[in-house]
């Protein structure tokens, strides 16, 4: 186990290094000049050169990267061009809202996906099954900004059940979590359905039914316990899937997380923030995958960590 962990963590470090190389290369290869964005339209060439030197942007790209990496190892993510403040604290202040939103979205997708999947499996082939699977298909395919705006319009503007975007209380959390969670819920309902159908075919289910157990108890006691295993293993991977979703959802709902920060940084070519958010997000995705892999053998003894 420890050997496995050590191996995974070493591999993760290499992945992070790769992510930083690629992001660094891509952002600086864009045919755009961050100095022009900072210096503004009135600057003289002399002032632009001064700023370029101050930021070290006049150095060859590999040297810039090595310097960046050197600071990164010490935990310094650099300083934002546009906001003139340190990137580390900036991301740290935006991380809790994003993590809260992801957690709520995971809860939402499980609350939607698992019951829907069980229900569809128990009504297999009937109309209820078809309706549930069609809905899951729709929820998976709807673009998140359309879904978010529709939910806002209906439940916040027309019905006034929830606030119109913003951050702070539980009621602020519901709609963005639902927007992120509905798509995942759609996937999970499909997985849950097929997994449940498979489990319900087993002999021990037939035995349970034969001894006169109610269908409800058959499904919850014997079916669910076995059918839910593959779903739990998937949760860790959601972190990666949600990372792209939060950029959209946070912008629609005015949620002050790293997705919003990233989006604004991209618009103003604020490379230190773009780099910082990418690296932090990569850390979380790697962590999520690691957790998913560590959980797998616990719930399915046939899988072993090597």
């Amino acid at each position, binding site marked *: 186990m420890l050997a496995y962990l050590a191996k995974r963590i070493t591999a993760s470090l290499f992945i992070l290094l790769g992510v930083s190389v690629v992001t660094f290369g891509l952002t600086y290869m864009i045919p755009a*000049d961050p100095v022009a964005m900072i210096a503004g339209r*009135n600057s003289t060439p002399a002032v632009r050169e001064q700023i370029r030197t101050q930021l070290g942007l006049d150095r060859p790209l590999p040297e810039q990267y090595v310097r960046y990496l050197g600071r990164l190892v010490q935990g310094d993510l650099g300083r934002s061009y546009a906001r003139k403040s340190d990137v580390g604290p900036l991301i740290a202040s935006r991380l809790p809202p994003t993590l809260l939103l992801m957690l709520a979205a995971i809860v939402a997708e499980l609350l939607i996906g698992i019951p829907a999947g069980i229900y569809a499996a128990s009504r297999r082939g009937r109309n209820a099954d078809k309706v549930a699977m069609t809905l899951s298909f729709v929820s998976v395919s709807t673009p998140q900004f359309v879904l978010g705006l529709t939910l806002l319009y209906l439940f916040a503007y027309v019905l006034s059940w929830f606030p119109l975007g913003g951050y702070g209380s539980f009621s602020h959390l519901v709609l963005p979590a639902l927007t992120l969670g509905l798509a995942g819920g759609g996937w999970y309902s499909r997985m849950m359905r097929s997994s449940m159908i498979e489990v319900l075919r087993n002999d021990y289910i037939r035995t349970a039914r034969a001894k006169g157990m109610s269908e409800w108890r058959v499904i919850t006691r014997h079916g669910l316990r076995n059918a839910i295993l593959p779903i739990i293993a998937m949760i860790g991977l959601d972190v990666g899937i949600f990372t792209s979703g939060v950029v959209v959802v946070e912008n629609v709902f005015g949620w002050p997380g790293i997705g919003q920060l990233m989006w604004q940084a991209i618009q103003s070519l604020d490379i230190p923030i773009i780099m910082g958010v990418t690296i932090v997000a990569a850390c979380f995705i790697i962590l999520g995958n690691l957790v998913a892999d560590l959980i797998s053998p616990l719930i399915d003894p046939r899988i072993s960590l090597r």
Partner: protein
Amino acid sequence: MKRLLISAVAAVALLAAAPMTLAQSPKQGGAATITFNNDLTTLDPHVGYDWQNWSVIKSIFDGLMDYKPGTTELEPDLAESYTVSDDGLTYTFKLRDGVKFHNGRVMTSADVKYSFERAVSPATQSPGGGYFGMINGYDDVAGGKVATLNGIETPDDKTVIFKLSRPDATFLHLMAINFGYIVPKEEVEAAGADWGKKPVGTGAFKFVEWVPGQNIKLERNKDYFRAGVPYLDQVTFEFGQDPTVAVLRLKKGEIDIVGDGIPPAQFAEIMADPAAKDLIAEGNQLHTGYVTMNVKVAPFDNVKVRQAVNMAINKERIVRLINNRAAPASQALPPAMPGYNADNKGYAYDPEGAKKLLAEAGAGEITTELYTMNVDPNPRIAQAIQQDLAAVGIKAEIRSLAQAEVIAAGGSGKAPMIWSGGMAWIADFPDPANFYYGILGCAGAVEGGWNWSKYCNEALDARATNADAMVKDDQKDARVGEWKAIFDDVLKDAPWAPIFNEKRFTYHSERLGGDPSLFTDPIHIPVNYDYIFAKDAQ
């Protein structure tokens, strides 16, 4: 009975409305909430240079000069009075008595000197420090050789003398832009790298708090040197608010101003809504949207081709395309700018004439590229231009890119044509000079500069310098006349095709009152927060 009730209600409503219309100046009190999609980047007046932070900074800080609210007319602000020497090289400002920073300290001439040195110092990385190039000693400070500007003298606490290396008629405007705002040294140094996050000024509003990514709160400065203003007790700016959602929130009465303006997709609907009619202030801004043509490379090195492009574009159709949120432009200067020539109608839409000119130019088949920023409505506008050009035989391929990439392509001279939308020049101060040097003069026609046409006419540059040397009050008209002539000549050379002048529409809640000009203030964009008031406080 019903009718009686209605008239009783009407009478009460009239009574309630009466004192408001009669009142000479509004009562203080109340609050307003303004939403923005993007976070504010900084509240450092010497650094902030986007349209969002520009006017928030104006409410927290002051300069020696300012503009009368809702107009482009200069008046002394932190200065009580000023004199200009006959040669235009010495400006002497007498400071107002009893102006205090928000920390309680009295502002003095030393603060003025410090502030300009800070704006010019390379350590500040100010995008506007270059504006003060005419102050003696600028080069040494900007070059990082010394820290003090020898062109600023402070004989006593209440007097500041600026010595200039050349006369410059825009100097008083420069005393009113954010880069010339006065900051307290002790607060700047105490805050260090965080200064832009905890500003302390002398302005109408005092900074209270900044919750990153969420909001900024300001409260009324009770010691503000102008008695009776501002009217609002509190102003809150909320960030990360999608304008589409912000419009819904305004309709529900949760917020007061959609800072980003009305989203294009909802514009027609809101303008047609009778309930919103009185809540939308319409005004002009000092803006021109234009197409640049790189005069250094074929085919646009030929003036006839450039003129033909001017004649080929149907500006009326483009204006309709954006729901009439603009007016067709005849020239580089917007109509509200001094120097605008109302008699110059520019190039009329004339595709046949354009074809003839192209034939005369002997340019043959022209294929080129039109760069545009990739945010709506700019790609649609570029497509309209593309169609108009195709009709006269110019094939323009559209390059729709992120803002920073278009700016880079323009600065390097790589882009033969650029549609300026989304990056266009909104004047920093209301003077024709601000529309010339950086975007049409030789100074901007360098690698990384903002003169994307790379148009450099040295004769015009010399005339511009001469015009700006006319600094006396009785030369004002002659100076504006000369600028008019300069811009007429620019139009003949046609480095740009001016397309339209954007109008501004500010959507605000019923709660807020104030002259419509305050909601479309040409200087405070989007709104002059210092002079609007809350109706519920009256």
